[in-house]
């Protein structure tokens, strides 16, 4: 909660890039609502407190002449059957409500917090027995419990609210106890355990700091429910006694005369409603301040729109595998998201990709370069506010850009299969894997359940799942990561697609399993003529399986070509940087430490070369104007670099030993211009 509320973190460049600025604005707005509701509740509290000063009337006596008097200058809200001023009774009734709520919440805190601290701290059998007791008390509806206690100890609001307070104390106790247990665990883990009184002091200070925000929120929301509880008890005649005014008893009186005068029900009803609403809003507002806001996302669906022709489409890059038929060709694909204060911001800009049958193309780049968004956008799987445009997306000979959701359903899972990064998260935990694979088959093929099952088991066998017929009935959590990824691959292949998109399929797996999965993918490419788009940030993977490689940086494709040639002599300094950052001994998922700086956020992309600020070879012309992806005329290579023709980059084979961890060496050391 310390970040964000007031501070606007600016990047060193001072370009006004605020991390999550949309969320920040949202919080401030929320806070404004918090302030507004705070003011409303404050006015109510003040008015109620100074009721005697504000109103000239006595709340409990009236003149019969005023019976059912309509609202007037004398009686702003009219008078009730006994001629008592409604506004006056409302204000005094508010005193009853607020005092009752203060009593209940006070008891809840006074009992719940210490009891929770002690129970959580002592633990053991005391914890077990008392928590059973708490469960017992909490299993009785509180109104029933309150009634039982009132029956025993006699009527009267203080008694009733004491019961309410004790019931609330149970949930406070639970909250505090849980927090104590968590804190003990945490301190133990942190090695902060010291002996004796010091430890206890640390523990309690730590715990109190942790529980303060949720307790404050809880107390606020409890205050609101306590007001309703008071009104309910008084409405039932179990709270205040006649003629004392309470919002609840006023409603009960209004109900008795509802046929003659409905209006009498409105002031007390609205008083309860507005007070409770206000306090609830304050509680929720505080909760939002204390906790991270949940991002709201819709069902992730966004069809690809045809791009308006205004943007000049660059020359198509020559094919690296001209002898093979094209499986998928993407022209000028862009993805944008609305960003607060910046309108729509492009995160992928004008990407061209060509994928041939039997080709495995690796799309590489750091996190944030737009690789995954590019792949997902072609399938219309970009999350809600995103906008995807393309001049053309051709799948074999069919144009699929501009297709609506219904038409894309026939493509997704059928002609293009997808494998995601985290196999266990990507499989639905509540259905068996067999169910999920058969579901995919039956979505696109007119087969019986039995046939689908046979197909699925065959697929499981093909992707190397042992005992496929038995594992068919297992749930995802019963699989290891590697086996789950085989299930995902089987599912993606279930309708025999032409194209397979694999988004970092091995990142979540350990190294030996990675190799098996990669071998499986390259085998499938060879035996089925499958075109595979493999997204990865791991150049070890690229070297192992790719035919061609495309490097992406800050939303643009910056280099493309056959993998052997690109690795031997990259034509873009960014590709060289990626190669330099590969750890020496083949291990694969190390950080990309050797390129200084980070990928700029989309709003900060410069007009010229996106890589300019991090490039060791940057010159004045690099920053002038957008750099096109230019074919280099040699076996389908292309680069988006002003100096592509003059730079001689050393690739990965040589001078690997010069690269040490922590030494910034982005293509710097071993280059001969």
């Amino acid at each position, binding site marked *: 909660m310390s970040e964000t509320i007031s501070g606007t973190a600016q990047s060193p460049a001072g370009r006004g890039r605020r991390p999550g600025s949309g969320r920040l604005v949202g919080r401030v707005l929320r806070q404004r609502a918090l302030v507004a509701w705070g003011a409303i509740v404050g006015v109510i509290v003040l008015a109620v407190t100074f009721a005697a000063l504000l109103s000239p009337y006595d709340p409990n006596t009236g003149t019969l002449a005023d019976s059912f008097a309509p609202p007037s200058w004398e009686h702003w809200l009219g008078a009730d059957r006994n001629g008592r001023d409604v506004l006056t009774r409302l204000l005094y009734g508010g005193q009853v409500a607020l005092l009752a709520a203060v009593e209940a919440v006070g008891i809840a805190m006074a009992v719940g917090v210490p009891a929770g601290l002690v129970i959580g701290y002592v633990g053991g059998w005391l914890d077990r027995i008392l928590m059973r007791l708490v469960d017992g008390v909490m299993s009785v509806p509180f109104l029933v419990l309150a009634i039982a206690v009132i029956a025993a100890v006699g009527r009267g609001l203080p008694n009733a609210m004491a019961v309410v307070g004790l019931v609330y104390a149970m949930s406070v106790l639970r909250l505090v106890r849980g927090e104590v247990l968590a804190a003990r665990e945490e301190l133990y883990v942190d090695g902060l355990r010291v002996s004796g009184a010091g430890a206890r002091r640390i523990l309690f200070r730590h715990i109190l700091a942790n529980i303060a925000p949720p307790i404050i929120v809880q107390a606020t929301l409890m205050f609101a429910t306590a007001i309703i509880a008071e009104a309910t008890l008084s409405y039932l005649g179990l709270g205040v006694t006649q003629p004392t005014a309470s919002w609840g008893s006023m409603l009960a009186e209004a109900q008795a005369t509802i046929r003659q005068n409905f209006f009498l*029900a409105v002031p*007390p009803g609205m008083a309860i409603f507005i007070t409770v609403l206000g306090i*609830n809003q304050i509680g929720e507002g505080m909760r939002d301040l204390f906790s991270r806001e949940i991002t709201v996302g819709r069902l992730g669906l966004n069809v690809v729109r045809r791009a308006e022709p205004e943007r000049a489409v660059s020359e198509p890059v020559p094919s690296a595998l001209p002898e093979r038929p094209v499986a998928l060709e993407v022209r000028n694909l862009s993805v944008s998201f609305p960003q607060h204060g910046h309108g729509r911001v492009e995160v992928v800009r004008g990407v061209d990709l060509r994928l041939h049958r039997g080709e495995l193309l690796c799309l590489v780049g750091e996190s944030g370069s737009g690789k995954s968004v590019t792949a997902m956008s072609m399938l219309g*799987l970009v999350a809600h506010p995103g906008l995807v445009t393309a001049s053309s997306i051709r799948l074999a000979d069919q144009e699929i850009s501009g297709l609506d959701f219904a038409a894309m359903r026939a493509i997704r899972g059928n002609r293009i299969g997808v494998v995601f990064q985290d196999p266990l998260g990507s499989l639905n935990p509540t259905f068996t894997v067999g169910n999920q694979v058969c579901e995919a088959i039956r979505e696109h093929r007119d087969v019986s359940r039995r046939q689908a099952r046979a197909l699925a088991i065959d697929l499981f066998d093909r992707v190397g799942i042992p005992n496929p017929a038995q594992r068919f009935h297992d749930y995802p*959590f019963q699989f290891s990561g590697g086996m789950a990824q085989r299930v995902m691959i089987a599912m993606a292949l279930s309708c025999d697609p032409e194209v397979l998109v694999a988004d970092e399929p091995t990142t979540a797996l350990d190294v030996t399993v990675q190799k098996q999965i990669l071998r499986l993918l390259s085998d499938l490419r060879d035996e089925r003529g499958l075109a595979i788009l493999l997204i990865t940030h791991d150049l070890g993977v690229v070297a192992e399986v790719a035919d061609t490689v495309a490097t992406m940086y800050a939303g643009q494709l910056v280099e493309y070509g056959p993998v052997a040639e690109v690795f031997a002599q990259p034509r873009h300094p960014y590709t060289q940087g990626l190669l330099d950052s590969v750890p020496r001994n083949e291990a694969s998922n190390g950080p990309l430490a050797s390129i200084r700086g980070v990928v700029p956020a989309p709003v900060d992309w410069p007009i010229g070369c996106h890589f300019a600020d991090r490039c060791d070879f940057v010159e004045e012309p690099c920053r002038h104007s957008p750099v096109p992806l230019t074919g280099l005329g040699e076996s389908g290579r292309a680069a988006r670099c002003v100096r592509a023709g003059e730079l001689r980059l050393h690739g990965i084979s040589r001078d690997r030993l010069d690269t040490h961890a922590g030494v910034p060496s982005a293509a710097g050391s071993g280059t001969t211009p």
Partner: protein
Amino acid sequence: MRTVFVRLLTIIPLVLLVVSGTFFLSLASNVDPAEIILGGNATQEQIDQLRHEKGLDQPALERYGEWLGGVVRGDLGTSIYTGASVTDLFMAALPVTLSLTVGGLLVGVLLGVGLGLLASVVAGSRLDRGVILLSTVGQAAPSFFIGMLIIYFLALKMAWFPATGYVRPSASFGGWLHSLILPSLALGVGVAAALARQARSSMIIALQQDYTRTALSKGHSRRRVVFKHAARNAASPVVTSVSFQVAHLLGGAIVIERLFALPGLGSLTIDAVLRYDPNVIQAVVLFAVVVVVLVNLLVDVSYTWLNPKVRAA
């Protein structure tokens, strides 16, 4: 099935604990039913005589044993005030309260889960904000105020429904339904508000999960993705809050029965409290605890169906 049985056994001590608690609470009370029945002018002799007749002068443990033995046999004792069998009183009132709570639950679940689901699919839109607003309003307004508004507009102004009263289903099934619609609505609105919120946020979380994207990538229809893949995962927390709402409904029924003059357990309870009739109150507490505990058991069983991980464990 065995786990259900074991669970049933473990809830017995809990029920016993709560029920015994209320029994001894009424004994510890300084209110003497005999005095209340006889009124302020009774002599001490008259009071002692009545106490003897009603068995109120017996030792506490003996009375407890007798009462508990009766409960096990299905005999909840007699009303001190009227001498009527509490079991009879209870059974006469039970159908009314059950109809009302089931009606309220139906309104709450159908309206709440439906709106929550709808809002989650269009999260962030105007419709979504409308649902959030409705649920905020529904949670802040007390049920009896909502009930009074409903009575005024739908029963008094429009005369579409009876304002008060209960019709036995044996007398007229249609009349029974008709008499239950407004009370169920009044009782269910608060439940719907809470469930809409829970359903919306659970669904929003489920719709953002990777498995939802996977389901879309397989070419499924939106309906299948929302109702099969996301809803199944979002269901557990919603079911949990439904079980919380049942306790809320039992309490709320007391208020709504009063508002709509329904002769159910709520009215029985209020009368019992006002004239001090401990056996009736104990019967109602017993009933409430048993219902809540059984619902919790049902919810736990549903988890095993909803979440295969629990099943395997």
